[in-house]
């Protein structure tokens, strides 16, 4: 084992780049997941049965199948029907759709926590149902679900390591290539673990800052 500073000099830039990839995937995945989750949660309250059934199926399928299989379906499966995605894009879509199902359940729970009177008082003033949802209900739901949605974001962040299996050069795959040439799995996997810890800790700090900011309300 050489000098630790030399090692950082050699492998550091590669790890940094892989960390940026993880960071980028996570941010984009969270965006996809919130969009899917919100849509599915609202779809479950739709007046149209077909829409409710579709949303229910989505959540049922995602929660009942392994994340890794969902990733494989998107990356290896879709080309068979002519949809070829880059590993990065396939990864973001797969993880986003996956996390979206859990976000949908969180949002659904948040929605049930808002009293009917909140909606009625907005409707009674002349707001449309969509305006009511957007300006009155969802801002309150967001405050309620912030802690659970943080947990979900953290598990999304950790799930990015699954994308090593579809050749996204994120932390895990980068470490594996180094291990293949150096035969030092322990150090390199520890390094990956430490970087993930730093990332999840940052995410937790951001979330608790948001929570403190909005905590003073009813």
């Amino acid at each position, binding site marked *: 084992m050489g000098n630790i500073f030399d090692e950082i000099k050699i492998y550091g830039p590669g790890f940094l780049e892989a960390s940026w990839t993880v960071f980028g995937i996570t941010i984009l995945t969270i965006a996809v997941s919130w969009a899917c989750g919100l849509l599915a949660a609202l779809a479950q309250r739709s007046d149209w049965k077909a829409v409710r059934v579709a949303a229910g199926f989505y959540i049922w399928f995602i929660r009942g199948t392994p994340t890794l299989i969902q990733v494989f379906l998107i990356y290896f499966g879709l080309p068979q029907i002519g949809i070829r995605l880059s590993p990065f894009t396939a990864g973001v879509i797969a993880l986003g759709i996956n996390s979206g199902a859990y976000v949908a359940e969180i949002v659904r729970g948040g929605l049930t926590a808002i*009293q009917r*009177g*909140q909606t*009625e*008082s*907005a*409707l*009674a*003033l*002349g*707001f*449309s149902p969509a*305006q009511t949802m957007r*300006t*009155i209900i969802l*801002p*309150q739901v967001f*405050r309620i679900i912030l802690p659970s949605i943080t947990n979900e974001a953290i598990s999304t962040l950790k799930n990015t390591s699954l994308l090593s299996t579809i050749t996204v050069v994120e932390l895990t795959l980068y470490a594996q290539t180094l291990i293949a040439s150096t035969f030092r799995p322990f150090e390199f996997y520890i390094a990956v673990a430490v970087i993930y810890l730093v990332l999840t800790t940052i995410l937790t700090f951001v979330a608790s800052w948001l929570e403190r900011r*909005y905590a*003073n*309300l*009813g």
Partner: protein
Amino acid sequence: MSDPLLKLREIRKSFGDNEVLKGVSLDVAAGEVVSIIGASGSGKSTFLRSINALELPQSGFMDFEGLSFDFRSESRMFPTPSQLQSLRARVGMVFQSYNLWPHMTVLENVTHAPTKLLKLPRAQAIQEAEALLSRIGLYEKRHSYPARLSGGQQQRVAIARALAMKPRLMLFDEVTSALDPELVHEVLVLMASLASEGMTMLLVTHEIAFARDVSSRVLFFDKGVIAEQGSPDILQHPESERLQQFLHRILHDKVGHAISNDSGQGTQA
């Protein structure tokens, strides 16, 4: 009565098999203050809520300021979503449970609808809201969140929020029922001052004294119909046996006020 502000004909509403409104008709002239009394389950709240279509009647006709609705779903005059919005924007409503929005300050609660729906410039909306809040004595609380206010204060803000839309008609649905007794007065005072300024008001209430002193007309609901109506005198000299019984129950049975809400007959032995 010259051209009423609000005209309702044969309003019917059922929940499942339970017919709550059995063809109620009513004209309200501008400036009238109409109190609606009756036991719980008599349909009075549903009636009030069908005036701004928070409950859509299954049939009946309505006229209000150029809006004409026929509530039969197959009718061509069935209200469209945008007609409903414009009806509700001109009819203010205050609820038993205040329903202020907890994520907005008092001022934001009052300015939200005028800025979003009437497209009032922000500065003007704030100015008008502050004037309203001064009037109800809560100017100092304008930057507080609702959770920091007492029930009476919240209810006054809820009234200000509705007034900010400059409604032609105000609906009050048991607005003092959730309040601690010592907070009821401040809300009633505000409502009385609105009435004296000529605001057209319909209120569902258990405050018989208030109904007697402030309203121009009293409706007694029983089993989905207006069983008796007239000047507030009917509260002193009720004609129908049902109104006599009702008044007797709520005036002489203080305990029953709370109990009558759930069980009808008091079980205090």
